């Protein structure tokens, strides 16, 4: 049982002895004064505010723009550990793509009874508009963010797949820049895998995903909901790094099933849209008619094969919590391989035996609503009162298909620089996977999210979570020699 595992710190392990990848950092930490760390923390905040790396918070009047707290100590992963993770990530994204092409195509996995069809067809993220349609190069998920947690030396688990419009990559890139400016000495002591080529790889992926008729020099754009979106900073940052236009829905129009953007020199044809806009808002003619953010007729152009949307429409069906539990089977079904990355063990309450087990063990499990997010509709057994558990048991018995249950996980911790000194805080990791007709790549590292509050497991930025720079380092053997 995961919940019985002792607490694992990525620097101190389970017994407090410094793990090898962290040796230099641990030594460095003993050599610097607390005032030095405090001054660097202040400097980091100033840098982020000056550059304007903020995110918008909905419904908060006094501050519509906030900083995501940045922790100045790196999270370190050895190359050998990373290599395993990387293979597993690529395998998973490959399977996600085959899965989606199958769901909107022949539906073999449903016919084989591996995944129940009602989980797909009655899923709100399933897009009937896409049924029977093929997308350019049969690729649905060009950019994936796979959330990973760690529980011990070799225990990496996938917590969640993000196959819609995963965000956070700009923080990954900016964190590195700020880190190199703040702590150049510490940085120079390590050989850290570079991540600055991510924008180039992303651009290459987008270009390679263009429709076959697009010609040798396809035009890509980044479609944003606009500056009031919480991730607008990231949208403008990426468009700038990619050297592509940052467009809003009103900058595009469709004529004769071809997408154009309005430029000062007249209409210009668009081949690839890296869209950071949800399916629902893409095209008021096909989806929500009240959407002012989309482009009328876009789905027509998409179906005509004249434009690539990255990611494709309808990918959400593959990343919800109910489908997640089937991912190991999905990987076996399409790739004939064993999954390299573990899922967090999950009980599907729709299954009779699982439900019985969950009802018996509510006090030690986390029970989640299949379509819930952001911590709503959730029971955290160990923190719940008897009355809450009883109430939840009734809900569960009433509609078991709507719930899954997982053990309460002992998320790993990392050292974090806080006001009182250096203290462990829980972390997770979101690596970013790019997938195109020419293959897959994973940027070494990803975004480490930190629960800045003591003992908190919530890493979401909307709830006070922060971020760290993530170093994949080359020169650390895993075992002492």
């Amino acid at each position: 049982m995961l919940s019985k595992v002792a607490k694992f710190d990525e620097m101190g392990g389970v017994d407090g002895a410094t793990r090898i990848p962290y040796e230099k950092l641990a030594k460095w930490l003993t050599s610097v004064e607390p005032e030095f760390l405090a001054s660097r923390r202040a400097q980091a905040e100033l840098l982020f505010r000056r550059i304007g790396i903020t995110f918008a918070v909905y419904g908060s009047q006094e501050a519509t723009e906030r900083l995501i707290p940045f922790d100045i100590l790196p999270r370190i992963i050895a190359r050998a550990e990373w290599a395993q993770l990387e293979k597993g990530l690529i395998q998973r994204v490959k399977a996600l793509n085959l899965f989606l092409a199958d769901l909107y195509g022949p539906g073999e996995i449903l016919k084989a009874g591996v995944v129940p069809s009602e989980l797909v067809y009655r899923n709100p993220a399933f897009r009937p508009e896409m049924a029977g349609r093929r997308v350019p190069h049969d690729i649905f998920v060009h950019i994936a963010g796979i959330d990973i947690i760690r529980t011990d030396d070799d225990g990496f688990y996938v917590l969640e797949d993000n196959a819609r419009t995963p965000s956070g990559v700009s923080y990954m890139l900016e964190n590195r820049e700020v880190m190199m400016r703040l702590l150049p000495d510490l940085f120079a002591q390590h050989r850290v895998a570079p991540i600055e080529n991510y924008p180039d790889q992303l651009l290459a992926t987008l270009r390679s995903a263009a429709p076959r008729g697009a010609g040798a020099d396809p035009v890509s754009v980044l479609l944003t909901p606009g500056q009031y979106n919480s991730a607008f900073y990231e949208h403008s940052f990426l468009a700038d790094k990619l050297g592509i236009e940052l467009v809003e829905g009103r900058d595009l129009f469709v004529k004769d099933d071809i997408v154009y953007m309005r430029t000062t020199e007249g209409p210009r044809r668009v081949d690839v849209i890296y869209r950071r806009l949800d399916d629902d808002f893409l095209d008021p003619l096909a989806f929500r008619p009240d959407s002012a953010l989309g482009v009328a007729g876009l789905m027509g152009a998409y179906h005509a094969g004249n434009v690539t949307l990255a990611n494709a429409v309808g990918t959400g069906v593959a990343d919800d919590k109910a489908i997640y539990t089937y991912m190991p089977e999905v990987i076996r079904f399409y790739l004939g391989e064993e999954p390299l990355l573990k899922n967090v063990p999950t009980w599907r309450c729709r299954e009779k035996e699982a439900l019985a087990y969950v009802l018996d063990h509510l006090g030690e499990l986390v029970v989640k609503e299949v379509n819930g997010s952001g911590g709503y509709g959730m029971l955290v057994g160990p923190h719940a009162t008897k009355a809450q558990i009883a109430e939840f048991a009734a809900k569960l018995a009433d509609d078991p298909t709507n719930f899954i249950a997982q053990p309460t996980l002992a998320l790993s911790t990392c050292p974090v620089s806080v006001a009182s000194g250096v203290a462990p805080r829980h972390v997770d990791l979101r690596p970013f996977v790019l997938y195109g007709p020419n293959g897959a790549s994973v940027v070494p590292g990803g975004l480490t999210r930190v629960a800045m509050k003591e003992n908190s497991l919530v890493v979401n930025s909307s709830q006070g979570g922060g971020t760290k720079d993530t170093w994949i380092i080359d020169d650390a053997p895993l075992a002492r020699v």
Partner: protein
Amino acid sequence: MLSRTADNLFWLARYMERADFLARILQASRRLATLPRAYGGVETEWESALLSSGAAPAFHAAGLTVDEANVTQFLAFSPDNPSSIRNCIELARINARAVRTALTVEMWEAINGAFLELEAFERASRSAEEVTRFLDFVKQVSAAYDGGAHRTMLRNDAYWFSRVGLYLERADNTARLLDVKYHVLLPETEAVGGSLDYFQWTAILRAVSAHTAYHWVYRDSLKPWLVADLLILRPEMPRSLIACYESVVQNLDRLGKSHGKQGPAQRHARAVFGQLEHATIESVFHNGLHDFIQSFIADNHRLGTLVSEQYLF
């Protein structure tokens, strides 16, 4: 480039320039207002500050009395005045955020930094000292933004659009200043040195940072028609109408060349520039200074519309 981006850059430059102009108007008015009454039309100074800034109708609609505190608050800080300095900076930042990819880091940091500091100024007292600091701050921000653009932007349509916006706005500001003050510049007001109007002329010159320049250009004591000449027809004076139009024409021309065609905007700008080039200050006075300025303001406004129609569809 995207039409929306061009539009944003155009207005961004205008807002920054307008904030700068408002700060200058306020500074000049404050200086004039400290003079003993016998030296000038001090009573009307705050009213004319409102008129030059185009904010008079909104000010009176709000039912405020015209005095230093109210006018300063309204022009500098009021959230209710759509073109207060505070709102100009906020609008500039909104536009800048929307087109961040088209700005260089220096330009963005100038605007973003100003926006962050604005909060502190808003909270601070309205003491004369604080207001002085604020107005200097606004001029510095505008200079930093302008300098950042000049030094770091690629010379492509993003640059040309923002320059066209800047010079259109500057021409408009100078013209409005002249429009409000034209009566003190008319030849019949010529009186012996030290007339009551003398301080009005210096105020006009200070508002466009030309008090020293005047003496270098004319090597003469202040003469109202020469003040008008300096602000309208002297190409070496950077805020004169002709200097603004020289730059408007130049930037529109580069835009036209890079797009491979000249349009109504270029033709109109050249026509306005041509009129200024061929005018003399005598002919301007002969035909009526007020009419001349009114028709310039209309022409300048028309150019803004033409640029929109031609490029920002």
